[in-house]
C-alpha cells in the first residue's frame, strides 16, 4: 500500500462534526512541512478552512498561505469556466454571461455535472503535476460517494461529447491507488463509527478509489494505569474526599467528578473504537489522533494535529 503522504491526491471525508476539516488541514500542513508542495482545497465554498490556518478566506485561485502550502476553495462555476477555457478551448469565454444564471439548472438537470467539476478540478491539478500532494476537504459521508463516483456515472450516462472524453483520464487517476486515496475521519462515537463502516463498504463497492486510511479523531487517553483506578475509587469515597480535601486545602469533589466523567467518556469511546476495529476489513490503515483539549481551532491546533499525525505516520 502506498504510504499516505506519498500519494498525490487525498479526499478527506467523515460525518459532520468529527473534525474532517481539522484533519485535512493537519495532513496538508504536515506534508508541506516535509517539503511537499501541497494544495489543500475545500469543496464547500462556505466552509471555514481558512480559520484553521488563520488566514483570510480562500478563493478558487490557490494562494500560498505558508511555505509550500497552498489553499483554495471550490467554486463549481469557476471550475466550469476554467474547464471550458483549458480543456475544451471553447471560444465563448467572453460571452459566458448567461451561464451563471442557467448554470444551476444544468448542474441539477445533468446529474454528476457539479460533482465532476469539483473532483475534476483537483484531478486536473494532479495530472498537471502542479503540486506534490493535493488534499481535498471533501464532502461529508453522505455525499462523498456521489462525488467520487461522478466520473464513472457521467461516462455511463453521457455516450458522446467532450465531457465524456474527459472522464477517461480522470478515472485513471482516481483508480490508481499509488496516486489517489480516500481518508475517512471518524470519532469514537456511535453514529460516526456506523457511518464510517457503511462508507468503507460503499467506497469499495461503488467507487474505484482506494481507501487509504481511517483516522480516528479525539481519542481520549487512558487516565489510569494498573492499580490506579482502585486508588481513585478509594479517594472517591466520602472518607477519601475528606482526607484529600484536608491534604489539598480546598474542595476536590468537582475535580474527582471531572475525572470520573473522563473515565466514563473514555470507556464509552473505547467500546465504539473496538466496534470500528472489528467491523473494518483486515489490513485497513487505522490512525489515531488524541483529543487535544485546545481552546479554539486555529493554527496552533492545526499544528498539534499535524504533529500527532506525523508521529502516527512515522515522520
Amino acid at each position, binding site marked *: 500500500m502506498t504510504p499516505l503522504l506519498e500519494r498525490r491526491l487525498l479526499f478527506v471525508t467523515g*460525518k*459532520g462534526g468529527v473534525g474532517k476539516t481539522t484533519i485535512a488541514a493537519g495532513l496538508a500542513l504536515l506534508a508541506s512541512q516535509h517539503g511537499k508542495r501541497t494544495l489543500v482545497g475545500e469543496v464547500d465554498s462556505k466552509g471555514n478552512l481558512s480559520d484553521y490556518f488563520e488566514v483570510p478566506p480562500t478563493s478558487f485561485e490557490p494562494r500560498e498561505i505558508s511555505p509550500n502550502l497552498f489553499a483554495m476553495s471550490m467554486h463549481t462555476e469557476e471550475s466550469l469556466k476554467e474547464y471550458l477555457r483549458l480543456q475544451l478551448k471553447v471560444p465563448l469565454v467572453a460571452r459566458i454571461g448567461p451561464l451563471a444564471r442557467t448554470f444551476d*439548472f444544468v448542474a441539477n438537470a445533468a446529474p454528476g455535472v457539479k460533482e465532476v467539476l469539483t473532483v475534476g478540478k483537483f484531478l486536473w491539478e494532479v495530472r498537471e503535476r502542479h503540486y506534490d500532494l493535493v488534499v481535498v476537504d471533501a464532502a461529508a459521508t453522505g455525499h462523498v460517494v456521489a462525488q467520487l463516483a461522478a466520473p464513472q456515472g457521467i461516462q455511463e450516462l*453521457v455516450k458522446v461529447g467532450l*465531457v465524456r472524453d474527459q472522464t477517461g483520464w480522470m478515472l485513471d487517476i482516481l483508480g490508481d491507488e499509488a496516486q489517489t486515496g480516500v481518508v475517512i475521519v471518524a470519532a469514537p462515537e456511535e453514529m460516526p463509527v456506523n457511518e464510517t463502516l457503511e462508507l468503507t463498504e460503499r467506497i469499495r463497492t461503488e467507487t474505484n478509489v482506494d481507501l487509504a486510511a481511517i483516522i480516528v479523531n479525539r481519542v481520549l487517553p487512558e487516565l489510569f494505569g494498573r492499580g490506579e483506578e482502585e*486508588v481513585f475509587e478509594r479517594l472517591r469515597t466520602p472518607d477519601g474526599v475528606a*482526607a484529600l480535601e484536608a491534604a*489539598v486545602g480546598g474542595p476536590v469533589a468537582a475535580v474527582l467528578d471531572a475525572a470520573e466523567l473522563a473515565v466514563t*467518556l473514555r470507556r*464509552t469511546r473505547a467500546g465504539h473504537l473496538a466496534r470500528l476495529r472489528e467491523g473494518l476489513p483486515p489490513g485497513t490503515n487505522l490512525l489515531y489522533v488524541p483529543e487535544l483539549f485546545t481552546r479554539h481551532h486555529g493554527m496552533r491546533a492545526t499544528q498539534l494535529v499535524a504533529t500527532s499525525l506525523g508521529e502516527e505516520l512515522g515522520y
Partner: protein
Amino acid sequence: MAPAKSSARAGSIEQLLDAKEIVIHCGSGGVGKTTTAAAAAAEAAIHLGGKVLVLTVDPAKRLANALGLEQFGNIETRVPNAAFAAAGVEPRGELWAAMLDTKQSWDDLVQRHAPDAATRDAILANPLYQNLMGRFVQSHDYIAMERLYEIHSSGTYDLIVVDTPPTRNAIDFLEAPARMADFFSSRFLRWLTVPARSRVLNFASKPFYTVADRILGSQFLEDIAEFFLLFQSMYDGFVDRAKAVTRVLEDRRTTFVVVSTLESAPVREAEFFIRELQARKLHLGAVVLNKVLPDYLLDRKATTSAKRMVADAPAIAEALDRSFGESAQIERVLREVGESFLNFQVVAKREAETKGELAGAPEVVATVPYFDSDIYDLEGLIRLGDKIWR
C-alpha cells in the same frame, strides 16, 4: 455520575407545543438532532397525550430498534406501551415513529401526479430518474418536507416532530420546495422540452446551448429532454404541491427547534439558521445546546485544588493515609486527575464563551449536559427529554 443540572431550560413542552402541530428540529450534522427530536416526541406523548409521530431520517441503529423501527419504507410504527412501562412511565398519548425512505417517497409522488399509468411507468423506469433522485442532494431535503406535508394533511397525528436530513446548509431544506418549483418552471427546462425541431432554431441563436451541447453531447441532452418531457406532465401538480409544502412551513402551527453543540462550526450554522428563521418570520420554538460540559469545570476553588494536585502531588500523597495506596501510585493518580480537570476546563471555557456569543435567542435556550453514555433506549430518551423540557 449524575449529570449536572441544566443551567437553563427551554420552558415546558406545554409552552412550546401549545397550538403547534409540527416541530422541526434542525442543525448541522453530529449535534444530536435525531435523539433530540425523538426525546421531544416521547416527552409530548407522555405529558401532553394525543397521537405523536417522530419522523426521522437516519437514526442510529440502536435508537431505531428502541423505537421499533426495523424497516424502511415509510411505515409508521407505534412504540409499544410495554417499552414505556419498562422505562417506568405511563404515557398519556401514543408515540409513533417513521423513517424517511427517499426513494419510496419519490416513487409515491410520481404515482400521485402522473397523468396516466404509461407516463408513470416510463418515469419510474427511466435511468435518469433513478440517477436524479438518488444523487440530487436537494431531493432529500424536498422529499422530507413533502412527506411531512403528506402526513400532516392526513390528519392522523396531533403532533409531528421532524428530524431534518443532514444538509450542507440547514437552510437548504427550507428552500427546497421553492427551489423545486423554480426548477420545474425554469427556462432551461422549458427549452429542453420544446419539440425537437423548433429547438434547432433556438439552438443556433444561443451560445449557451451550443456550449451545453458540446459539453454534454446532443444525445444526452435528448435523454434529459425526454425525461423532463415526461416529468412536465406532472408540472402543475408538482408546483402546487411545492407551494403547499412551503405554506405549511410558514404556518403558525409549525415551530422550529435549533439544535447545536457548542463547537464553533455547528454554532455558526445555528446562528445563521436563527437569523434566517427571523428573516422569514418563521417561529423559533427553542434552541437546544447539546453535549455541553458540566459547569463545575469552571469552578474557581476546584481549579485551585486541581492545580495543587498537579504541582504538589508528592506532598499531598505523603499526607494521605497509606490505606489509599502506595504514595507513588497516589501521586500519579493525583496528577492525572488534576491534569484531566484542567484539560476539560479548557474546553468548558471555550464552550462558555461560545454560549455567551449565542445571545441572539434568549429565553428559549436549553442546555443539555454530556451524558455519560449514548442514548439508545426509551429510558435514555425520556431522561434527555426531561432534561430539556421539564
